[in-house]
């Protein structure tokens, strides 16, 4: 692989040198011919994704020189007539489209009036490259080239004149990125079917390495200033979720859902919890849904708890929404491991404590739901060393560690019920934790009834 | 219309087809 890459890079450097020499001498057509020869190296099927990436990066740098030269020439008034057409004469599609994107970018930078037309053309013409690896990198090149020039202005009022809005507006940018994203996700998912079945693991690893190429589309969407909550809700998120859910590929789904959470602001997530969580319920069974939802809850909990923030808007019943959707997810995914179900309850408790700290009833409702889950499955004893046991222990420690008041724990009606499900070792550990918490915090137990309650909680230590 | 960017309207691919394994 390294030898192949070295050979390819050698050709690239040689052709690039010739290209620059021709451009410096004003021989544009010859320069473009060398550029096309250089780009021909990207037609290779011999390189692994990692090596292809190296080659692509080198060539991208060289193309920047071409772009810069053309832009200078255009701006100095030495515009080559029909250059956008001329580069389309190239016989091989990969060099042709890289050149088209480069020239298209120069056209747009020199004359905004062709922006809409050219952006649409470029994203559509890239359909010709259906090879997953080559297609992914080509569309990534398109995305990188256009990162500063996507129209980010309000849509004009509707008009019958097709010549209006030639510079494009936010809807054009959204259409551009969403189409590019859909095509890239398709190619990325398709990679899993390439090659022999014995190389499946290797292919999955390679796919993981390439995920950022697809994710960059989401980053680009998040960078558009005109994408407000309303646009995100109506135009962006539906498009993303449609692709994520429809692709039925665990690797893609898990990555995309995490990416959506990371890349878009919390204010957007607060307004779109319903569709997002609904989508979570429809994901492939191998997707770590627990991790996705927990990740989102953590973010929003932190957002709600921010010192300088406004907190969660009162009209958004955050806890109820998550609680309801988590129940739906659990119901729709019978194969979900029990420990994941409990882990989701842990996240809910965390949310309640961070954002609704006065609402003990919310914490208790989580404990009740958890007990209900175990009831339905006829689970009466849980080994504390098992993954499920560990999660249950976490669930029981969380309110203890948060409130630091044993008397508050006594108010959680469903706490003893869950504690009793643990085996002796587990109950002993939790009891010890409770006692240490009381001692560390100097908790006074004022009434005999409360003493009774505490001693019941610690019965494994007492009896 | 500018010939250099002229295209025929492309048919939309269904999501099922787009993500189907090669047949």
């Amino acid at each position, binding site marked *: 692989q390294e030898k192949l890459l070295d050979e390819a890079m050698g050709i690239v450097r040689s052709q690039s040198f010739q290209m620059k020499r021709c451009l410096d001498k004003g021989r544009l057509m010859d320069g473009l011919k060398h550029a096309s020869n250089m780009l021909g190296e990207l037609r290779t099927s011999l390189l692994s994704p990692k090596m292809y990436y190296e080659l692509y990066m080198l060539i991208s740098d060289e193309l920047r020189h071409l772009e810069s030269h053309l832009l200078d020439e255009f701006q100095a008034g030495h515009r080559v007539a029909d250059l956008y057409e001329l580069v389309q*004469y190239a016989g091989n*599609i990969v060099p042709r489209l890289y050149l088209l994107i480069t020239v298209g970018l120069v056209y747009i930078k020199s004359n905004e009036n062709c922006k809409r037309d050219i952006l649409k053309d470029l994203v559509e013409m890239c*359909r010709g490259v*259906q090879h997953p690896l*080559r*297609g992914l990198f080509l569309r990534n090149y398109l995305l990188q080239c256009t990162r500063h020039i996507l129209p980010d202005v309000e849509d004009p009022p509707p008009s019958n004149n097709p010549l209006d809005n030639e510079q494009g507006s936010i809807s054009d940018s959204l259409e551009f990125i969403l189409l590019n994203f859909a095509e890239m996700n398709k190619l990325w998912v398709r990679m899993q079917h390439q090659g022999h079945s014995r190389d499946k693991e290797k292919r999955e690893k390679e796919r993981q390495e390439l995920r950022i190429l697809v994710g960059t589309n989401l980053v680009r969407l998040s960078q558009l200033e005109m994408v407000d909550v309303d646009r995100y809700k109506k135009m962006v998120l539906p498009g993303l979720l449609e692709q994520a859910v429809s692709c039925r590929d665990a690797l893609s789904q898990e990555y995309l859902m995490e990416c959506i959470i990371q890349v878009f602001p919390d204010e957007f997530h607060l307004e779109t919890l319903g569709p997002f969580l609904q989508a979570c319920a429809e994901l492939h069974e191998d997707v770590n849904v627990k991790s996705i939802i927990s990740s989102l809850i953590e973010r929003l909990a932190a957002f709600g708890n921010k010192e300088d923030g406004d907190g969660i808007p009162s009209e958004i019943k955050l806890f109820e929404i998550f609680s309801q959707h988590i129940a739906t997810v659990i119901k729709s995914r019978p194969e979900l491991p029990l420990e994941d179900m409990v882990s989701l309850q842990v996240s809910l408790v965390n949310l309640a404590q961070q954002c609704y700290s006065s609402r003990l009833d919310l914490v208790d409702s989580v404990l009740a739901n958890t007990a209900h889950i175990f009831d339905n499955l006829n689970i009466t004893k849980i080994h504390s060393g098992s993954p499920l046991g560990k999660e249950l222990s976490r669930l029981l420690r969380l309110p203890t560690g948060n409130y630091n008041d044993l008397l508050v724990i006594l108010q959680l009606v469903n706490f003893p019920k869950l504690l009793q499900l643990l085996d002796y070792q587990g109950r002993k550990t939790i009891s010890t934790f409770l006692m240490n918490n009381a001692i560390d915090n100097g908790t006074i137990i004022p009434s005999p009834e409360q003493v009774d309650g505490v001693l019941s909680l610690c019965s494994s230590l007492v009896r | 219309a500018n010939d250099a960017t002229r295209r025929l309207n492309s*048919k939309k691919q269904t999501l099922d087809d787009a993500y189907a394994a*090669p047949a």
Partner: protein
Amino acid sequence: FGSNAEIKVEFANEDASKQITVKTVHGESKKKRIQTMSVFSGNETVGGKIYIAPSGSKRLEHTGIKVELIGQVELAYDRGNHYVFTSLIRELDAPGILTAEKTFSFEFANVEKQYETYNGVNVRLRYFVRVKISRSYGSNIKKEIDFAVQNVRPDPEINNTLKMEVGIEDCLHIEFEYDKSKYHLDDVIVGKIYFLLVRIKIKHMELQILKRESTGNGPNLYNETEIMTKFEIMDGAPVRGECIPIRLFLSPFDLTPTFKNVHNKFSVKYYLNLVLVDEEERRYFKQQEFFLRRKA
């Protein structure tokens, strides 16, 4: 037996805009030459000036000077025969003696030149003016100066798309569409390929332009097919529902208008050949004739 002559012909329209460069193939050696010649349209008057000067002994006796305008078809396999379809003569000078350069004006007006100049593999259609200096002794002096004829055609009133579904059962079904059936030489073929069924491992797809030159008739029919270009339109393997765009500019290629049964001697037809190549280099193709014209 008297001297030779230097003959020069200047056509009346000899400015650069009315000149074209033509690749011609000459002689047994098939040597390729590039010729620049004046171009006329089919109903244009062909005229100009002819300069004749005696060389050598500076004295040229002749029995008459004429200029002919000839249009003829020359077939590679039939070198002896030239099939003349247009022939006109103008007298330039009565018998006499040339002692210095003399200039003659000539004009062939209202000559119908319905066929275009064509230089192909096995057939050539030429137009030329032939200056002939007749002599009573020694051989006659002749000079032929080629000129080109190009005929423009108006845009057709009807120009249907070429759209068809083709396939191999259970294997590959596609629908191809090209935006027109009749294109001009500087046109662009805009089209798309829609995949209805894909059960083979496609490596890539290309669109070829084939030029088929047919000469002769009946049992003597001979076809020469040339691939004018192979234009890659898809890299990699699509799945069902994929729609691949086509945009192929015709101006870079050395194409001619479609010629149908020129003087009953030859035809030149063009085809779009859609070729899909699979991983084992098997080729699946669909040819579709299309028509080319010259546009003003």
